[in-house]
């Protein structure tokens, strides 16, 4: 099956007016290309005044016929055509080599669009061909492996490459005040949350992402407070070793 490419049947001349079913066209380039190709016009020497008139006639009342956005796309092209027409009327310099044909940019766009339109047709028949084949309909369900257990394929270089590609954050007032009060209560809440998920958490891990000493101090005070309440236990295997914070066994509060 081929794509419904526009045919001349879609343009009907009535009272010297083109009646075009705009819904059938992908956009202004599609319509313009149709007008040119269906009349066997040399695309490298488009009679811009005629084509502009035809295009404008074809999209007459477009605002009422299509959505605002789609109508805008057609109107923009009409404006481009009118501008090119005006430029064609201007006297051109003797020095022709320097003076580009005002139509050339549009012609390039049309040819490029036509190429992709053709590729789309080829893809469409490939799609139909592929649809004749069916894969295995039923595949026995197998338990998915635990994602957390799978080895991750990612190097630090790859992560950095992604990080570098990211845009700069938008300039605006900072999200948070540069200095915010740190309270023991806040840290207690955090430890409690954390110990709900894990039986033990290394103290270091918890404070290392904040550089200020105040965070570490408050976190430590929070641990001591929790230990006092029996909601946490602190353990250090050897001096200067990792300080582990364990979930309390006799949780007095609950």
């Amino acid at each position: 099956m081929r794509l419904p490419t526009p045919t001349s049947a879609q343009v009907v001349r009535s009272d010297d007016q083109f009646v075009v079913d705009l819904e059938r066209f992908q956009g202004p380039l599609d319509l313009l290309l149709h007008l040119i190709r269906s009349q066997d016009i040399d695309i490298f020497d488009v009679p811009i005044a005629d084509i502009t008139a035809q295009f404008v006639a074809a999209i007459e009342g477009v605002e009422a016929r299509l959505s605002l956005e789609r109508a805008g796309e057609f109107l923009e092209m009409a404006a481009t055509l009118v501008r090119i027409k005006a430029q064609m009327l201007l006297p051109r310099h003797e020095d022709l080599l320097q003076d580009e044909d005002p139509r050339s940019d549009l012609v390039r766009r049309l040819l490029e669009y036509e190429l992709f339109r053709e590729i789309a047709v080829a893809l469409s028949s490939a799609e139909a061909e592929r649809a004749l084949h069916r894969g295995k309909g039923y595949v026995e369900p197998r338990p998915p492996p635990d994602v957390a257990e799978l080895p991750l394929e990612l190097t630090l270089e790859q992560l950095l490459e992604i990080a570098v590609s990211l845009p700069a954050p938008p300039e605006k007032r900072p999200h948070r005040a540069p200095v915010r009060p740190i309270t023991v209560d806040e840290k207690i809440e955090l430890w409690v949350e954390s110990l709900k998920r894990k039986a033990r958490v290394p103290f270091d891990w918890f404070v290392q992402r904040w550089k200020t000493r105040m965070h570490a101090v408050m976190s430590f005070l929070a641990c001591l407070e929790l230990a006092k309440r029996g909601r946490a236990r602190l353990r250090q295997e050897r001096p200067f070793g990792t300080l582990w914070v364990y979930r309390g066994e006799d949780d007095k509060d609950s």
Partner: protein
Amino acid sequence: MKTTRIVEAVLFASESPLTSADIAKASGELSAKDVEAAIDELRHEYERDERSFQIYPLADGFQILTRPEFGPYLEQFDSVTRTSRLSRAALETLAIIAYRQPVSRLEVEELRGVNVAGVLRNLQERGLIEVVDRAEGLGRPLLYGTTSKFLDHFGIRSLEDLPRPDELQISLRAQE
């Protein structure tokens, strides 16, 4: 077209078991009896040729399944091939969290321009990020940071060891 071939194609492509009467509908000239004879023939061929699949009669019809003795190979295949390669979306989110932590979902979404709820869940399941704090302000949104597993994976001891070249634009609140 030979009956056995049509029956085989239908059984292969069907998502659910089919009865012989169902399969017979593939062609006007087939009866359920023809289909059953074809299935017998196919079963015999698969057995003879030691195919790794077979047609099994189930409560609600027939279905082609892989023979059970290949189970261990499929398991092995799954566990090795389904390695966790992160999507571009997940990578960008992870990079933002790594360099800007602790960071809220909203902030990540502003930077990426898309909703990241699903991506965050995914990264959490993989144990690469976790909730590390709550922000000040309205609703006290959760703040995310990377885990020790994240550091382990890259063989770095602390976040300070993350490279921070000059061209990095998303950083650098951490250097205040």
